[in-house]
């Protein structure tokens, strides 16, 4: 286990060490201590490593992540896992605005709640939120899957393209061109897999969710 004290060594040194890990490496386990809400922690990692951040993070933690598994043992600031390409980001606490924005792949798991604009403009990422999500979530979402065990705020899925949204609780309002759609067997299967991978299979059953998608009228 590589332990990195962010308070002592600084962000540049952390990210530069993580960027030096190319492809396969035997230094697969990393721990970041004293994050103290710093921005851009572990942004731009491109290696199959496991990074645990012990505390809360500022903006853009795990931004553009590729391959890495990043665990935040606290809450995450705005834009966590923005434009993620692959890998997994798991947040034990809550996530601020724009979680998973424009994400193109991989899995983002938020065990608490997510604020507004969660999954904005998502392009292939899977997002599983154990709690609720705020307003304008999945705005212009292009592809990928959003799973919300709690409720969704106003204007869910406004100007949606082809992303699939699954919400178990209430939806305050749907955005322009977003409609409820039929849950077919393939959606149950997909949701069941997402709940499992999102560490939420003990918390909810796929049958409890409603599916939302684009009316394709804009």
């Amino acid at each position, binding site marked *: 286990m590589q332990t990195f004290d962010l308070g002592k060594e600084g962000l540049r040194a952390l990210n530069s060490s993580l960027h030096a890990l190319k492809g396969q490496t035997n230094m697969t386990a990393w721990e970041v201590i004293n994050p103290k809400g710093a921005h851009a922690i572990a942004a*731009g990692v491109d290696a199959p490593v496991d990074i645990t951040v012990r505390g809360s993070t500022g*903006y*853009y933690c795990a931004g553009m992540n590729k391959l890495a598994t990043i665990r935040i043992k606290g809450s995450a600031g*705005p834009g966590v896992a923005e434009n993620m390409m692959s890998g997994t980001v798991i947040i034990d606490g809550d996530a601020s605005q*724009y979680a998973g*924005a*424009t994400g193109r792949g991989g899995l983002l798991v938020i065990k608490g709640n997510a604020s507004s604009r969660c999954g904005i*403009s998502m392009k292939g990422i899977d997002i599983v939120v154990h709690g609720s999500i705020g307003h304008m979530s999945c705005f212009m979402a*292009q592809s990928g899957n959003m799973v919300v065990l709690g409720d969704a705020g106003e204007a869910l899925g406004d100007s949606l*393209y082809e992303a699939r949204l699954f919400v178990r609780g209430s939806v305050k309002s749907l955005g322009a061109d977003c409609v409820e759609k039929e849950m077919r067997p393939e959606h149950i299967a997909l949701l069941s897999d997402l709940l499992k991978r999102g560490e939420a299979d003990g918390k909810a059953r796929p049958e409890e969710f409603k599916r939302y998608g684009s009316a394709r009228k804009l």
Partner: protein
Amino acid sequence: MTEFPKTPPRFSATFTPAVNAEIRRAAASGIYDIRGGGAKRQLPHFDDLLFLGASISRYPLEGYREKCATDVWLGTRFAKKPIHLEIPITIAGMSFGALSGPAKEALGRGATAAGTSTTTGDGGMTEEERGHSKTLVYQYLPSRYGMNPDDLRRADAIEVVVGQGAKPGGGGMLLGQKISDRVANMRNLPKGIDQRSACRHPDWTGPDDLEIKIMEIREITDWEKPIYVKIGGARPYYDTALAVKAGADVVVLDGMQGGTAATQDVFIEHVGMPILACIPQAVKALQDLGMHRKVQLIVSGGIRSGADVAKAMALGADAVSIGTAAMIALGDNDPIWEEEYQKLGTTANAYDDWHEGRDPAGITTQDPELSKRFDPVLGGRRLKNYLKVMTLEAQTIARACGKNHLHNLEPEDLCSLTIEASAMAGVPLAGTNWIPGRNGGF
């Protein structure tokens, strides 16, 4: 009965035949007009400025024998690897999607041969463009189509696009006709549907967030790349100052004559300011912050000739950028295709329905047959020639003003032909020492 002469037909200056035709078109269709290009209306522009040339008080340089350098450094503020270009005329961002793959290749070829940079666009980075561009600027746009860390790292600079001159406050638009399989794949969108890019970035709002966003991009790219911030000509004094505050290495400022692939005509013609009015405000912001020449300023929007380049630089820009002019150099709107323009209900030099994807010149299209008409090698050569001519023209003017580098041109080398241009550019009306409004702010 005596016949008196009749009042001859009189057209309204307000309701001109063109205005009336548009009212009829709108009434018949119920659809607003979308087109490509920049503002077509008459605007105060570089044509309203003149160089004074050398005289007894300052002496000129010999046209062919004395050196007049043209190089420019961009991104010297924070980037570990700033860019050094041989000429201060760059190629503006134009998307793959709006333009064909071969057209993007030609831009790369021409720019590289001339010693300058090209810029991606809303559609992501193509292999044609990266492969043929020695120096490539990668745009970071609200849509984030195709955005990925690998392309960020193989770019030579990154341009965070906040706005563009043709439509400050507006997002992109690519109509379904141009969403081919390849374009759809690069943008993660279904084929053939109209695509509307967002006008705001998805994960930051305001200058404080922008500062953190720029820091994140620097972290991802290990602080190597220059980071530009592109703004449309709306509030250039404040936008420039805020871009500097947010950590930009370079500010790119685009006036309303700057083109777009597709936007509502009403937006293009009625939102934003001409580049002439924008440059002095941006320069003043940089000077007020003590950052002029430290954060470089690239200006665009209606640059056509070496005279325009020289005038923009005399007003304080470090470099200029061309889009529409580069397309014309490649062969856009060429009268050799007149017969086909006529079939599309238009004429050469006026064709602006680029969004329809039926460009006879094969440049603003994704149609494989039309694209074949365009030869990227020839196009690249034409662009190189044009860039060379512009550079020589700018040098001619600079030498006449006694300058051994284009960057030594200054507002004192200029006078203005109109009161409007004088007030906007902040240079005296020709034959006077008068700059309107100078005692009452800028």
